[in-house]
């Protein structure tokens, strides 16, 4: 009997590769400390409240946000994203054929550790890979079609929970995570600021007129639609890695290329810190 239980347990262990892999204890400790810091610093906010970023910090701003979300300025482009998602490739397949899970679950798989490739995979990279494996041309990344389709998936995934797993015992996965963590806390650029300086220590404070969003919950609504991007480039949509580039430039640091190890590992760490938060669908930001 004992033997049988052990065999079953081992079988379960082997069948449960990435989806059920156990979270690294070190990573879970980081997440608990990170979320604990924010909950303690902002005792009036619940974990889910942090998803509203700067709007959670001010009733006035929240009212403006809610008014805009009544008639979101991004509906047309989001719909185009849905159309592109459903449009068959030249070979007759659609994007859906690249994933085994339902469309609504795809967003929740990412970012994830791909042990076979030994690297982090993001949702946006998954879209590009899907194009390529179906013989289609790659798209430009970060905005445009790429961001609209990713936003379509974010909208479908609304209400599901972020759950980034760094598998316990996988040294390479932990190394990628730690690389992202170092990036997040390292000062850089001529202005000598880390991501954490502004979005952990500075969360809720103002730089000139901008209220800084807390790092916790930044991943719930990406790709995001930003008024500022819409004004300067005509397309308000941007992926997480487009935003990383913008925040690097702000401190006069050279941005990294999207979908390479630096930003992929950063996204792995940064998203994991919001584990347990609900995906809120596509949202507006200033």
């Amino acid at each position: 009997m004992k033997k049988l239980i052990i065999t079953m347990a081992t079988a379960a262990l082997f069948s449960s590769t990435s989806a059920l892999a156990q979270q690294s204890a070190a990573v879970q400790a980081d997440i608990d400390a990170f979320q604990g810091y924010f909950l303690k610093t902002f005792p009036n906010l619940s974990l889910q409240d942090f998803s509203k970023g700067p709007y959670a910090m001010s009733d006035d701003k929240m009212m403006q946000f809610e008014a805009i979300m009544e008639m979101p300025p991004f509906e047309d482009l989001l719909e185009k994203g849905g159309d592109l998602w459903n449009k068959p490739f030249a070979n007759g397949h659609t994007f859906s054929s690249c994933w085994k899970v339902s469309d609504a679950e795809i967003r929740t798989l990412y970012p994830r550790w791909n042990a076979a490739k030994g690297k982090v995979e993001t949702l946006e990279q998954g879209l590009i890979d899907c194009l390529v494996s179906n013989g289609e041309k790659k798209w430009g990344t970060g905005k445009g079609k790429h961001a609209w389709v990713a936003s379509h998936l974010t909208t479908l995934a609304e209400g599901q929970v972020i759950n980034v797993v760094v598998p316990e015992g996988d040294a390479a996965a932990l190394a990628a995570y730690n690389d992202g963590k170092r990036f997040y806390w390292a000062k850089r650029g001529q202005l000598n600021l880390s991501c954490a300086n502004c979005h952990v220590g500075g969360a809720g404070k103002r730089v000139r007129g901008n209220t800084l969003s807390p790092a916790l919950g930044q991943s719930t609504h990406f790709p995001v639609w930003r008024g500022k991007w819409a004004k300067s480039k005509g397309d308000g949509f941007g992926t997480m890695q487009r935003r990383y580039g913008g925040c690097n430039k702000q401190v006069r640091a050279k941005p990294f290329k999207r979908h390479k190890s630096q930003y992929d590992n950063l996204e792995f760490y940064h998203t994991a810190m919001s584990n347990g938060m609900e995906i809120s669908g596509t949202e507006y930001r200033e």
Partner: protein
Amino acid sequence: MKKTISSISAVITLATLFAMPLEVGAKEMSGKDLAFDRKLGNCLACHMIVGGSQPGNMGPPLIAMKARFPDIATLRAQIHDATVANPNTMMPPFGAHGILSADQVDKVTAYIHSL
């Protein structure tokens, strides 16, 4: 006559085009100009300064500076490289990272000390 008018207007256009840069070049930026300029000091990004609009609040308001910094050298050191006093400070090392030249740091220091 028509020709004169058009050449006069050409002169005026040229003059207006050049007047601005010439004036800015000729008139050196004061400590206050440097402190308020968004590309140079941009102190208002993080500090309230009397007379500056839309200040941020990452750092303390810059008021009563002589009381807080009786020795102007301490103030200059904070502006030159705030990381010496606090390695994890959010305040950029204006002198040490060449955001402002030594001369500009002097001017900003004198201005801030006067607040």
